[in-house]
């Protein structure tokens, strides 16, 4: 398992870092989403939307290693573009392989149309039923999902669910189809938009996939979200490190006090562990290792818990300034909490880990 970066990967990271810092970061008014022109540029000039898409649809056929690096940069600047939602959808489509949705993928890669991913994260309320085409009628999707990232502006949806016979499947639904309803949700993360989505009998393309393919999709989703969270953690350590090097109290910069310094050292260690876990997960997926699902679940588990901790601890270490509306610290705090439940609650992730370990 190779955990080192190639020089090409380092170049990609540097390019993503430079671009996202100036185009992805939240606007001064903290409104959700980013400037549409910026997103088009990141699709067309940097190819960020197509990182995980197949070459034949205009994508760059990159691996999870590359995608995870870009996601980390997004997390670090609190990216507001549809980068994460697009990547999640692309990861799901890529794992399926040949689909009838190639033209849709090409549109999303180019940025002409936007895509969002639907998956059930609440066992009690979310339902997704995929119906394949048969003599009884064309393929359709019925879904009710309580919180979907970037659903408001999506032109189509990738839907993960199960067919009537219990087999896992993937659906593609045009957002303009009759029966698709989106209710915007406001919530904790001010810089991203979410919606409740209801789809009733909308015409769709539906394909059954094998359980291993669905596991592979899940591993990809885990790793991408984990990578964004690692970016959040990294930013917290860097920004807080810079602050405690300048803030003076009792005649000394507060970073010289061990009470502060040691907490930052702990945060840094946490960052390295989570970063390494994401690299391992991405490597395991790219190299089709048998433990890929486990590595990905470990990465998400670690990144989630660490981001929840680090964003809270850094608020405390900033003192009063970090608790102000104008300071960015609370935006990272908010992002960490929403990302923590994006793919299901941490408790459900831990149960999945236990199942993967057969304990």
């Amino acid at each position, binding site marked *: 398992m190779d955990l080192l970066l190639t020089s090409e990967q380092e170049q990609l990271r540097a390019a993503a870092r430079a671009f996202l810092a100036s185009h992805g970061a939240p606007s001064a008014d903290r409104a959700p989403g980013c400037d549409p022109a910026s997103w088009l540029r990141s699709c067309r000039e940097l190819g960020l939307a197509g990182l995980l898409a197949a070459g034949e649809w205009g994508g760059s056929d990159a691996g999870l290693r590359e995608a995870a690096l870009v996601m980390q940069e997004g997390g670090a600047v609190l990216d507001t573009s549809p980068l994460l939602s697009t990547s999640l959808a692309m990861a799901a489509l890529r794992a399926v392989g040949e689909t009838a949705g190639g033209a849709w993928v090409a549109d999303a890669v180019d940025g002409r149309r936007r895509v969002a991913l639907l998956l059930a994260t609440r066992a009690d309320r979310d339902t997704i039923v995929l119906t394949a085409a048969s003599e009884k009628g064309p393929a359709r999707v019925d879904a009710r999902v309580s919180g979907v990232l970037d659903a408001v502006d999506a032109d189509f949806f990738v839907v993960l669910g199960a067919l009537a016979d219990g087999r896992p499947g993937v659906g593609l639904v045009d957002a303009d189809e009759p029966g698709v309803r989106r209710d915007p949700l406001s919530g904790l993360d001010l810089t991203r938009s979410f919606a409740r989505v209801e789809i009733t009998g909308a015409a769709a393309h539906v394909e059954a996939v094998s359980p291993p393919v669905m596991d592979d999709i899940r591993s990809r989703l885990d790793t991408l979200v984990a990578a964004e969270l690692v970016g959040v953690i990294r930013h917290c350590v860097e920004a807080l490190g810079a602050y405690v090097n300048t803030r003076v109290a009792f005649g000394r*910069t507060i970073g010289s*006090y061990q009470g502060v310094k040691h907490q*930052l050292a702990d945060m840094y260690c946490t960052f390295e*562990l989570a970063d390494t*876990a994401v690299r391992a997960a991405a490597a395991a997926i790219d190299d089709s290792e048998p433990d890929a699902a486990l590595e990905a679940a470990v990465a998400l588990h670690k990144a989630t818990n660490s981001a929840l901790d680090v964003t809270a601890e850094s608020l405390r270490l900033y003192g009063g300034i970090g608790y102000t509306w104008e300071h960015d610290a609370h935006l990272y705090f908010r992002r960490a909490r929403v990302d923590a439940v994006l793919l299901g609650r941490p408790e459900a992730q831990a149960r999945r880990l236990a199942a993967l370990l057969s304990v």
Partner: protein
Amino acid sequence: MSALDVAAAVANSRRAPGERAHDWLLRHAAAYAGGEPAEADLDTARALMRELHRAGLLGVTWPTSAGGAGASEDDERAIVAELSRYQLPLRPFRVGLGTVGPTIVDIGTESQRARLCPGILAGEHVWCQLFSEPEAGSDLAGLRARAVPVDGGYRVAGRKVWTSGAETASHGALLARTDPDRSKHRGLTMLMLDMRQPGVTVSPLRDMSGRTHFNEVLLEDAFVPDDMVLGRPDDGWAVASRMLQHERVAVARGVGRDGAETRSVSFANVLRLHREHGDPRADVRADLVALFVGEHLVDLLKLRMSQEAEAGMDLGARESMAKLLLGRQDIEAARSAVRILGPTAVFDGGDADSRALILAVTSSPSLSIAGGTEEIQKNIVGERILGLPREPSTQQGRTFREIIAEGRAIGGGN
């Protein structure tokens, strides 16, 4: 030769010593290829050292005048990568090979290299480090052992603790104070002490696990000749720092750390014991997940850092981070084992499993203390990686004698 040919040639020359080591170990070290750490008596270990040395697998970068192979660091990396696949019973020679030897090579005189290094490589000399004292642990530079110049050398007196291997050592790297009227770090000298002389008394020190892996060494008027000063007199702090740096590299490369004690609180072993002896009604899934994740994360970090080291990257202060995390994982794993196994972990069932568990639990704090406590490692991570300022010292600009006088006034220390 095109650029491609050059690259291929470089890659090949790099691979060759590794392949040589690989073949040699296959033929000569098969007994140590298993996963279990091997214990061997001193004579067996010594014989293995001689063979390894003759095969050119020890002292790879040391000059030939010091008994080494005079090869490159790339060669050494390739060979160390092969050696680390085996559980070679070289524990007694760890300090000589990984810590003192490389320092003698760096800064010893030509005569010292010729006299001392071949003995290390051939397994004839066993070295120990005489650094820590009852009142100087994390604050090593506060040590009090005195070395007084006399005709032809130094007379030394003092008390050293936590000295592993002193009972078998022939030589000791002794950090002692030669000038108390200079500042704390300035008046120290690194002396190479003959351990087998009157005035050197070694007594075992029992640790909390009940074992006696360490010693206390009492020095009463022992003698060190002038030609056994390593580096310049009164410059011992720099020499000690260099030694500790070599030690960290050796530890990071896995030379010497066998992890035998904490093996029984590994996820795999705890899960096996839980299935064999545990309470089937207890819901220990969350604890098992925590144990697995903690262990797996440090394993991944070790793998990443060994790949970085092999690629020639400078790990710098991240080695302190690794030690911090490994030490903490030992403690967390022992805690998880007790939570998961309950009574099985705390009562001696009369079998090897339960004795090993009790040993693992009671030796779990050792790595978080040895070689610098967690607090010291956190200072290093904070200052060298994150660039945070050092805590201002109240001892700046004062001699050691003044510092000691003040210490008596504050703490009543002796």
